[in-house]
């Protein structure tokens, strides 16, 4: 695990939007997101900027290369502000090295420490291998949205998972 010492997790800057966009457009990545093409990805990056400006996004950097992003989709309504949805995207060349775990662990930390959240949750497609990572970090399932994704006549279910803080 020596390589992990070279991984730094820092608060994202607006410039990291380019990283988010690049990762989303890597082959196969959009299979795990609702976006379909460049236009939809750019729309998602614009929404990310809102949370980034609130300090709610983290960037993983390995050997000075930004390689992953995780953020809190902070809620706007007062009665919902104790919880939020989270999103994570990791460069495919940097997977299976513990970076996703480190990124999420730090996100969980700032959820409690900086944003006073009591619960975070996520939405993951049934086919996404990242489900194992979320389970390992303590996320539990609370439902399934049937046939949430429809692509080329193929349907994929969406699983809801949450973590009480």
């Amino acid at each position, binding site marked *: 695990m020596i390589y992990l010492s070279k991984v730094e997790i820092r608060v994202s800057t607006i410039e990291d939007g380019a990283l988010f966009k690049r990762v989303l457009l890597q082959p196969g990545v959009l299979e795990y997101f*609702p*976006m*379909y*093409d460049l236009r*939809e990805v750019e*729309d998602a990056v614009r929404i990310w900027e809102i949370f980034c400006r609130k300090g709610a996004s983290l960037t993983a950097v390995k050997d000075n290369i930004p390689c992953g992003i995780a953020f809190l989709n902070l809620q*706007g*309504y*007062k*009665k*919902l*502000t*104790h*919880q939020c949805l989270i999103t994570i995207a990791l460069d495919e060349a940097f997977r299976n090295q513990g970076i996703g775990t480190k990124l999420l662990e730090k996100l969980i930390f700032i959820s409690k420490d900086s944003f006073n959240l*009591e*619960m975070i*949750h996520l939405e993951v497609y049934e086919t996404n291998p990242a489900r194992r990572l979320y389970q390992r970090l303590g996320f539990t399932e*609370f*439902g*399934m*949205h*049937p*046939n*949430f*994704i*429809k*692509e080329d006549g193929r349907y994929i279910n969406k699983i*809801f998972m*949450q973590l*009480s803080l």
Partner: protein
Amino acid sequence: MLHWFPPSNAQELENFIKVWMSFSRYSASLTSVYEKTPIGIGTLFLMPYRKVAHQCMFQIVVDPDFQRKGVGSSLIKNLKHLAKTQFRQEYIYAEIFDENPLTVLLNQQGFKEFARQEKYVKEKDSYFPRILMGCDLLE
């Protein structure tokens, strides 16, 4: 009434209504009228992304003076029809806060619960669940 909806105050309500009514632009909103007075409204929150555009959430609200008279049932029935015929929706669902009387109506109309998230809503240090109920329009 606001217990069942995301807003807690006037400012939040304004924003909520703005988003809700923006869907009337796409003719995705229906109004119930009784003797020329609008008494209920139901809206499909159509999804902007292509891969998820075959299904959507909806919201309804009925004037308290006209509740328990079939207005909600009629709105849901008409929303299902609108979703299927005009927008080629295959599945519609509702996000319900707490144990809302709406769950009974939805059960009657073939909706099934597919997720229940405890403590999703927090009001004055009390917690309430959100319940997601969906209906397959292809069946």
